């Protein structure tokens, strides 16, 4: 028990340090601590399940220890930015004012091909349009385009945007979502009327129906219903 506890803490710290050394590109949208816990917990939990001769406590103690370490370190990193930089690293600027920072590319072991892959995944094909590209601590790339290449917003072209609010689902696979209906200030009578207007006889025939803040309705009947 005690040995499991101490071993878990040693392996946890070792993996966090290893992942920091491996760099951000290995993380895949998780912070180093989260990745370590995700890697270890699945294996630790599986071991006593596979071997009934191993007491369950051999899985429980390390899992609880890891969770506690993760919560504790996450809390500390929120409070102390220096410790956060030490554990999670800091964002790396790969493109600054259109200039590729080659030293940062080398430091993060990112090739130009990989940078292009990341940019293409964000639908950017011309690197010259990128003003800033920042490799975040969780391994994702944030891109800021030059204003000339940024998507135009309604405000920029002086159009009043029509905020319709977020649509609310009122029928989900034939089930009436009563709470959502109440949220919209509507009742079942209104719902049945709208359904019959669209050719369905009862909510069970509807696959999905959603209503936005302006009262616009999205409606789809179930396959085979009329």
């Amino acid at each position, binding site marked *: *028990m*005690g*040995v*499991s*506890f*101490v*071993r878990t803490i*040693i392996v946890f710290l070792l993996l966090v340090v290893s992942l920091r050394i491996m760099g951000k590109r290995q993380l895949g949208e998780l912070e180093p601590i989260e990745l370590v816990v995700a890697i270890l917990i699945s294996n630790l939990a599986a071991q006593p399940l596979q071997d*009934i*001769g*191993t*007491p369950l*406590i*051999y899985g429980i*103690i390390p899992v*609880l*220890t890891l*969770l*506690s*370490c993760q*919560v*504790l370190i996450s*809390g*500390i990193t929120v409070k102390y930015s220096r410790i956060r930089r030490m554990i999670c690293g800091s964002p790396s600027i790969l493109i600054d004012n259109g200039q590729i920072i080659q030293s940062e590319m080398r430091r993060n072991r990112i090739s130009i091909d990989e940078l292009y892959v990341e940019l293409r995944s964000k639908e950017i094909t011309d690197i010259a349009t990128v003003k800033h590209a920042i490799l975040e601590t969780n391994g994702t790339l944030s891109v800021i385009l030059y204003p000339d290449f940024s998507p135009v917003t309604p405000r920029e072209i002086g159009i009043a945007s029509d905020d319709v609010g977020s649509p609310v689902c009122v029928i989900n696979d034939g089930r009436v979502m009563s709470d959502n209906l109440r949220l919209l200030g509507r009742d079942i009578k209104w719902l049945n009327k709208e359904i019959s207007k669209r050719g369905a006889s009862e909510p069970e025939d509807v696959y999905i129906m959603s209503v936005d803040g302006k009262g616009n309705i999205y409606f789809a009947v179930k396959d085979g219903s009329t």
Partner: protein
Amino acid sequence: MKKEVFATALLAVIFALSVANTYFLDRLTGQIIELVEESGRMAAYGDWEKAQNAAEQAARLWKEQDPYTHIVLRHSDIESMNDDFYELLEHIYSHDAGAVNSSAALVSEHLSSISQIEQIRIGSVF
């Protein structure tokens, strides 16, 4: 902040339980080893009744802790320990002093190894 306090408390509890477990296991194995060694000594003097009593008491003490040992020790270790006890008792019943001596040494060695594995020391951690 509540979460962090809870996590710290949980770590402290796990650590305290680990230390308590190490202490308890060390005491338990120590008691059993004493009885087994006494049994070996009595067998060497030819006092088979005392040797048998001590060995049976040791085996009983071990068996009484079944619920605890099954929670904290690998089941293969428990089974192999039980086999060692059966072997020791078998040699005592057949009044084979030489075999009792080696069986008692085996039981003592096995018990102290179980206890040492649980001690938080460089050797057992790495």
